[in-house]
C-alpha cells in the first residue's frame, strides 16, 4: 500500500548516460545554491574562531585561530543552563502542540458538526495578531494566572498558535474521503480513527511541524525575555544577547554562542528530514 521510494519524480532507468548527466546537472545546481545560501553562516562559524580584534574584519579565514571563545561561552557564562532551559521548553511545547493541533485539525477537517467552518475561520483569525500590541494584554493574563517567572509561563502560552492547526487541517483535508469509512463501519471510535489511522498517515507533516515548533521556541526571545527575570530560567537567545553591553558587543562570543545554539536545531532537522521526505502514497487505498 505505501512504498518507501524517496522520490516520485524523474525516475529513469538507472545507469543510463542521460540519467547520470541529469543527475550531475542537478547536483551542480544544488551545490551552487547551497553554497550561496550557506556562505553567511560559514562566515559566522569561522568568525567564532577569531579573536576579538579580528572578528570584525571581512576576511573569511581567521589569522589567529582560537577556541577561546567557546571556552569562554561555556565557562564564564552558564550557557549549558541556557541550552537546557531552551531544550526543556522547546521539547515540551513541541510535543504538546503536535498533539493538541493534530486533534483539532482532524476535527476541523474530517468531522461534521455545526459551525465547523466558522470555528476554523475564527481559529485562523487568531494568527493575525500584531505582537507588539497584544504582548501587554497577554502578559497581564499570564501574570493573573500566576505564571510569570516560571517554566509554565514559558511553555503554556507558546503552545497556542493557529499555524499548526491550519497546516494540519489542509493536509487532512487532502486525504481521501473514504479513509475512515471502513473503520467507522466496523464501529471504531473517533479517537481510535485519529490515533490509529490519521496520525500515522501524517508523519511527514508532523515531522515538519516538529522541526518548526522546536525551532520557533528555540529561537524565541521576546516572550521569554518578557515573562522571566530569573537568570536560572534564561533561555539561549536571551543568553546570547547578554554579550551585548551598553555601547559595545562582544562579537566573537556572540558568534560562538550562536554557533553552539544553532547545532541542536540543525541536528533535529537532519534527523527529521528523512521523515518529511518519505512519501505516503495514498493511491493504494482507492
Amino acid at each position: 500500500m505505501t512504498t518507501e521510494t524517496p522520490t516520485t519524480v524523474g525516475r529513469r532507468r538507472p545507469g543510463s548516460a542521460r540519467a547520470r548527466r541529469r543527475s550531475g546537472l542537478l547536483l551542480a545546481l544544488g551545490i551552487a545554491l547551497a553554497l550561496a545560501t550557506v556562505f553567511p553562516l560559514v562566515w559566522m562559524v569561522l568568525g567564532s574562531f577569531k579573536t576579538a580584534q579580528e572578528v570584525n574584519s571581512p576576511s573569511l579565514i581567521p589569522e589567529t585561530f582560537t577556541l577561546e571563545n567557546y571556552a569562554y561561552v561555556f565557562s564564564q557564562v552558564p550557557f549549558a543552563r541556557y541550552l537546557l532551559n531552551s531544550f526543556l521548553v522547546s521539547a515540551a511545547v513541541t510535543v504538546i502542540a503536535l498533539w493538541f493541533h493534530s486533534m483539532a485539525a482532524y476535527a476541523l477537517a474530517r468531522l461534521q458538526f455545526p459551525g465547523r467552518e466558522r470555528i476554523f475561520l475564527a481559529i485562523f483569525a487568531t494568527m493575525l495578531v500584531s505582537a507588539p500590541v497584544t504582548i501587554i494584554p497577554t502578559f497581564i493574563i499570564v501574570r493573573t494566572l500566576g505564571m510569570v517567572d516560571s517554566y509554565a509561563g514559558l511553555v503554556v502560552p507558546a503552545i497556542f498558535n493557529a499555524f499548526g492547526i491550519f497546516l494540519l487541517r489542509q493536509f487532512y483535508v487532502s486525504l481521501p474521503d473514504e479513509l475512515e469509512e471502513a473503520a467507522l463501519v466496523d464501529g471504531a471510535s473517533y479517537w481510535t480513527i485519529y490515533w490509529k489511522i490519521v496520525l500515522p498517515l501524517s508523519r511527514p507533516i508532523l515531522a515538519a511541524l516538529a522541526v518548526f515548533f522546536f525551532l520557533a521556541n528555540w529561537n524565541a526571545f521576546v516572550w521569554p525575555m518578557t515573562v522571566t527575570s530569573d537568570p536560572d530560567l534564561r533561555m539561549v537567545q536571551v543568553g546570547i544577547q547578554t554579550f551585548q553591553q551598553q555601547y559595545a558587543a562582544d562579537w566573537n562570543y556572540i558568534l560562538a554562542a550562536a554557533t553552539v545554539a544553532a547545532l541542536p536545531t540543525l541536528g533535529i532537522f537532519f534527523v527529521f528530514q528523512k521523515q518529511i521526505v518519505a512519501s505516503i502514497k495514498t493511491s493504494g487505498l482507492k
Partner: protein
Amino acid sequence: MSAATTTRTQRSRREARAAALFLAPDAIGLTVFVAIPMLLSVVLGFFWIDGFGNVDFIGVDNYVRMAKDPQFWNSARVTLIYLVTLVPLIFVVGLGLALLVQQRFPAVGIIRSALFLPYVVSMVVVSMIWQFMLTDRTGVIATALSAIGIDGISFLGDPKLALGTVVAVTVWLQMGYYMIIFLAGLQDIPGELYEAARIDGASAWQRFRSITLPLLAPTSFFVLLTSMVAVVTGGLDMIFVLTSGGPANSTSLLIFYIYQQAFLFGDLGYAAAVGSVLVVFLLIVSAGMFLATRGGRFSHDD
C-alpha cells in the same frame, strides 16, 4: 422518524461530541492566550493610554488621527511594497527549491539541509551577520563588488535600496521553511500519475502544469496565506537589527510603526488602533481567499 434517520442523528451527535472534545484544548488555550488579548487590543484602540495607568476613552479619535498621519501612510505604503514583492518571490523560490530537492541525486540530503540552514539560526543573529556583510566599504559584499569594479553601493544605507535588501535577506532566511512545506505537499502526489502522463508523452512542463500545480493547491493556498500573514505581522526583529526602520523611514513597516508607537512613544491606544487596522486588512484578504477557494478545500476529482 425511520430507524436510519435516528442512527444518523445519533451518529452526528456522536460526531459533534467527539469534535468538541478534540477541539477543546486548543480552543481553550487560544481563547485565553490569543483571542482575549486580541479583543482587548481592539478595545484599547478606542482609548488614549499612556502606559502608566492613565486611560481615557476617546472613541474613534485614534482612527481619525491615523487617517491624517503621514507616517502611518508611509508605513502602509512600505508594507504594501514589501508584501507584493516578498510573497510571490518566496512562493516561487520555495516551490522551485522543493522541486529541486525532491529529485534524486547524490548528496541531496545535505543540500536540502544547507538550504534550510538559514532558518535554523535565530533571526537576531542572522540579521547581525548580514549587517556585517553589508557594511559599506569594509563589508564582505562591498569588498567583493569592489574587486569587480563596482563601488559605492550602500545596501542598507540607501533609502532606495534598503527595503529591497530586507526583502532579499528575508527570502534567504525563509526559503528553506517554505521549501519544506512544499516538499511535504509534493510528496503527497502519487508517482503513478506522473508515470501515466509520461507514458502518454506529456513533457515535464505539461506534467508540472496539469498534475503538480493542481494537486499542490491546498499547500499553495496555505503558503500564500501564511506567508502573507507572516510578512505583514513579522519581520520586526530583522528590521530592528538591520535598519531600525531607517534609512529615512524607508523600511518602516507597519509592524515597526506599531512597535514604535507602543514602546517608544508609549501611545498604546494609538498602537492598538493601528494594529486593529492591520488585523482587519488581513481578515478581509484572508476571507476573500477562503471564499474564492470554498474554504480551502480542494476537490480531488481528476
